[in-house]
């Protein structure tokens, strides 16, 4: 299960060494984190933007920023993945802010194809009724497999606050979700 995998990775003593190799711009180290995290961050961003194109662009930006910032990144024991997800989170917040501003410029409010496709899915539609933070906590916990503490590290919240958000989100979703297919 991914949650277990991430927890194991967080505890890995190799993490500090990997960060050092990244700081020295070792190509193999960068390829390693790219291969591990590009698919995950892409999925994480896709689920919150509903657009493959946007998710691709934002995921690429995450790794560019990681290259630019690794020199000032300090390993303090929390997993590198939390930092990458944090960078992704900030990119998404920027994207959301700019998207809000766009209609003032061109008035274009037509949803993209991915939106319409996702709308067919009951759970995807129900997720849209949640606040962005509730959506994020469910995706981090149940899609990306983060623990409450790890999700809290990414979102800047305590594990308790994450559990509270998760409870509210699931309580809202339960009204919208029918029995799953067996």
């Amino acid at each position, binding site marked *: 299960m991914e949650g277990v995998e991430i927890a194991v990775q967080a505890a890995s003593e190799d993490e500090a060494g990997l960060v050092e190799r990244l700081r020295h711009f070792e190509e193999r180290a960068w390829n390693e984190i790219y291969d591990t995290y590009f698919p995950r961050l892409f999925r994480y961003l896709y689920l919150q933007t509903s657009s493959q194109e946007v998710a*691709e662009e934002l*995921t690429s930006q995450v790794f560019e920023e990681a290259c630019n910032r690794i020199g000032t990144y300090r390993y303090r024991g929390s997993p590198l993945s939390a930092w990458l997800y944090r960078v992704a989170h900030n990119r998404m917040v920027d994207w959301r802010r700019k998207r809000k501003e766009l209609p003032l410029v061109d008035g274009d409010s037509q949803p993209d194809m991915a939106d319409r496709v996702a709308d067919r899915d009951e759970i995807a539609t129900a997720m849209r009724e949640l606040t962005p933070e509730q959506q994020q906590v469910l995706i981090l916990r149940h899609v990306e497999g983060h623990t409450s503490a790890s999700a809290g590290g990414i979102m800047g919240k305590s594990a308790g606050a994450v559990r509270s958000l998760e409870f509210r989100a699931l309580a809202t979703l339960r009204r919208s979700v029918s029995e799953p297919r067996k």
Partner: protein
Amino acid sequence: MNAREGFLGKALVQCLATVERGSTVDEALVGHEDVAEELRAMLLAAQAVRTLGRNAPEAPRLAAQRGRARMHAARLAQLERRGPTWSWIPWRIVGLGSAAAALAAVLVLAEVGPFGSDTAPAQAQGIVSRTSPDAIVINTAQGQIEARIVDETLVVDGSGNVIAAGEIVPGSRATVELEEDEDGLSGLKIEIEDEDGEAAHGAEVEFGGTVLSVQGSTLTLQTSFGSAVVIVDSSTEINGTLAPGLTLRVHGAVQPDGTYLASEIEVEGREGEPVQPEDNGGESEYESADDGDSGSGSETQDTGHEGDPAKQDEEGHD
């Protein structure tokens, strides 16, 4: 969360942990029969969320290739820019400029240790004077401090929610954890306290926005942190004319009621267009003090289109 929700919440945490260890929903519900119905629905909802991940498209191969190319380009650019290995230089005041000197004073007063790789980050408290996506300026008792906002910077509001830097309201009280690197000061964490107009009364601030309406001596601006009410008086220096749809830069002071008394307003343009004060299409405007008839706002009229700059645009540019 009431008592029942608290009880349900604890049971949910236990059940989720059981499911995460590989048990079925029914197995996880054993021992929670009194709230099983509600829990089951929530556990099934969590399972449904997991299906979103399974149904999400994989990163397209071409996208991955393009992304990898961009990452390596950035890596090579960093390698090229890299000078001698940077090592920590002990905190010094000489040559660091007034902002850093002010911060040093804060550190002494706050009994915070000097910067260093083995020490906790420094902390500064003050009133937010201005922000941009890349930087924050706060006024402290010892002087003004500017810190870069980088991707790692965490910005949280008074409720602990993560917000974008642009959402910080000028005049808010903030606590900033800082560290120094070769480019200067950067913010690790910015905590914004709940808005308190009294606490920030008189604080000098600066921000930009688009005029939504002009009513008498009161402007309403749309800004990145929401709408802001700006008061103009006879001492306000206005560079240009004020009308809905224009983008402005406001320098002013926070009032007890949370409005801003402008000392200076710079008209920057209309959605990227140059300022054309003479071509106002008959719209009502607040005349600039520089136009020779400063007054105290009596020149302003209700445009009749408050909150609808788009309509103003249509009518003003026919």
